[in-house]
C-alpha cells in the first residue's frame, strides 16, 4: 500500500532557513529573498485556481504581506512552503467567498505564446498543452488545488494536506480523482494510437 512517509521538504542548500531566521529579526532584504524564491511558484498555483492574472497577482502579493506580518510566529524547522501556500489558500478561499456575494468577470488575460512551452515547443506540444489547460479548467477547484500542488511543486500528500487544511488521505483522493478525470478527458490525445481496451497480457 503506498504511503507517504516522505519527511518534510528539505531545504536544498540551507539558505532558506537562514533567510527565514533573518526575516524573523526584521531583515526585510532576507524576506525579499524569500519572495524571490517563492513568488513565481505561488503565482503559478494561484493562477491555475483563479484563471485570472490580476487576481492571482493580487492574491500572491496579499499572501506575502500576510506572511511578512506573521513570519515572527513561524516555527523554525517546520515546513515553510506549506505554511506559505496555506496562507495563499486561505486568501483564495476568502476571495471566492466575497465573489459569491458580488461576482466579478474574470479578465481575459491568457498566457502569450512566449509564456508557453518555450521556443523549442512544437505546434503539437502547444496544442496539447492548450487541451490540458482546458481540461484543468473543468476540474472542481478542490481537485485542481491538490493536483497542481502535486504536479508543479512535487508536494507529498502530507504537505498538500497541510496546505489545504485536510488529511493526507483526502489529498491523495483529490489528486487521484483529478488525474482520473483528466485521463478520461484527454485520453485520445495523450496517446492517440494506444489501445487500452485490449486484453491483458495475463
Amino acid at each position, binding site marked *: 500500500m503506498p504511503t507517504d512517509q516522505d519527511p518534510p521538504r528539505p531545504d536544498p542548500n540551507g539558505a532558506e532557513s537562514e533567510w527565514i531566521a533573518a526575516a524573523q529579526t526584521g531583515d526585510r532584504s532576507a524576506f525579499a529573498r524569500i519572495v524571490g524564491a517563492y513568488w513565481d511558484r505561488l503565482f503559478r498555483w494561484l493562477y491555475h485556481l483563479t484563471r485570472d492574472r490580476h487576481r492571482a497577482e*493580487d492574491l500572491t502579493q496579499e499572501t506575502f504581506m500576510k506572511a511578512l*506580518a506573521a513570519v515572527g510566529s513561524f516555527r523554525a524547522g517546520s515546513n515553510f512552503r506549506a505554511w506559505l501556500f*496555506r496562507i495563499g489558500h486561505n486568501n483564495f478561499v476568502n476571495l471566492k467567498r466575497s465573489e459569491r456575494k458580488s461576482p466579478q468577470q474574470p479578465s481575459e488575460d491568457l498566457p502569450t505564446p512566449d509564456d508557453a512551452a518555450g521556443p523549442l515547443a512544437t505546434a503539437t506540444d502547444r496544442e496539447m498543452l492548450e487541451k490540458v*489547460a482546458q481540461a484543468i479548467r473543468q476540474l472542481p477547484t478542490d481537485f485542481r488545488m491538490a493536483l497542481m500542488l502535486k504536479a508543479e511543486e512535487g508536494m507529498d500528500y502530507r504537505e498538500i494536506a497541510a496546505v489545504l487544511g485536510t*488529511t493526507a488521505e483526502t489529498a491523495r483522493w483529490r489528486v487521484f480523482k483529478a488525474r482520473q478525470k483528466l*485521463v478520461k478527458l484527454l485520453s485520445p490525445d495523450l496517446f492517440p494510437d494506444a489501445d487500452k481496451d485490449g486484453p491483458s497480457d495475463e
Partner: protein
Amino acid sequence: MTCDVARNRLLALPDPTRPTDDLLPHLAGCAACRAVQAEAVRLDALLKRLPVPSSEERKQAFMNRLDTEGPIIRTRPVVPSTLADSGAFKPVVKWLKRIDWRYVGGGVAAAVAIGLGIWFLVPRNGGVTKADPPPRSERLERMVKYTTDLAKARTPQERLGVYGNWSADLQGEAGDVFKVAERDEMISLARNFEEMVNDGVVPQARQIKPGDMPPDARSQALNDAMKKLGDAQTEASRLAAEAPPNARDALQRIAKTAQDGRRTLSDIAQGK
C-alpha cells in the same frame, strides 16, 4: 489484482513513474495498465509545462517596496474581506440620502392599516392549506446534514465547526420548547448539549495543535467555537431567568456547560 484496482492505484500514486512493489507484477503482465501508467506519467509532465502569464513586473515592484518601505507594512486589502470594505454600501447610502422620509412615514401608517385589515379578514389556517404536507423537522434535517458533514470532515477544525453548530442547535431547540416541554425532555436536551460540547467540541479543539496550521487560522477556528458557546451561554442564562421550574435546571445546565466549554477552549487557544 484487477485492472480497475491497479489503475486506481496508479492514478493515486505520489509519482506514477515509481509504482509500488505490489503493482509491479500486474504491470509486468498487463499492457493496458502499462498504457494507463504511461498516460499518467505524460499527464504529470504536461501539467508542469502549462503556460502561465508572466508576473515579473509585479514581483519586482513588490520586492522594491520591501526594500524601501518602513519597518511595518500596513496591510492594504487588495481583495475585499468584508462587504463594507468592498464599497458595496456606497450606492445604497447615496440613495438613502435622497429619500424624503416624510413620505415614508405616511407610507408606513397606511401599510399598517392595510396589513391589519388583511390579517383580520383573511381566514388563517396556520398559513398551511389542507393540501400542504405537514412541516418537516428542520432540526432533524440539520442533524442529517451535520452527520454527512462529519462523514466528509478530515480535520479537527472541520469537525469542530460541525460540533459547534450542532451544540448551538441543541441550545436553540431548548429555547424553542422550554415553556411547554416536560422536565425530562428538557434534561435530555441538556444532556445532549453536554455530550456535544464535552465529547465533541472540546476534544476536537484539543487536536488543533499550534504549528499544524497558520496561527491566524487556528485562532479563527477556536474563536468561532468560543463565540458559539458564548452565545449559547448568554441565551440559556437569559431564558433560565424566565423559565418555568421544570425547564430552569436544564437551561442552567446548558449555560454552565457552555461557560465551562468556552473556558477550556480559551485555555487551549492560549496554549495552557
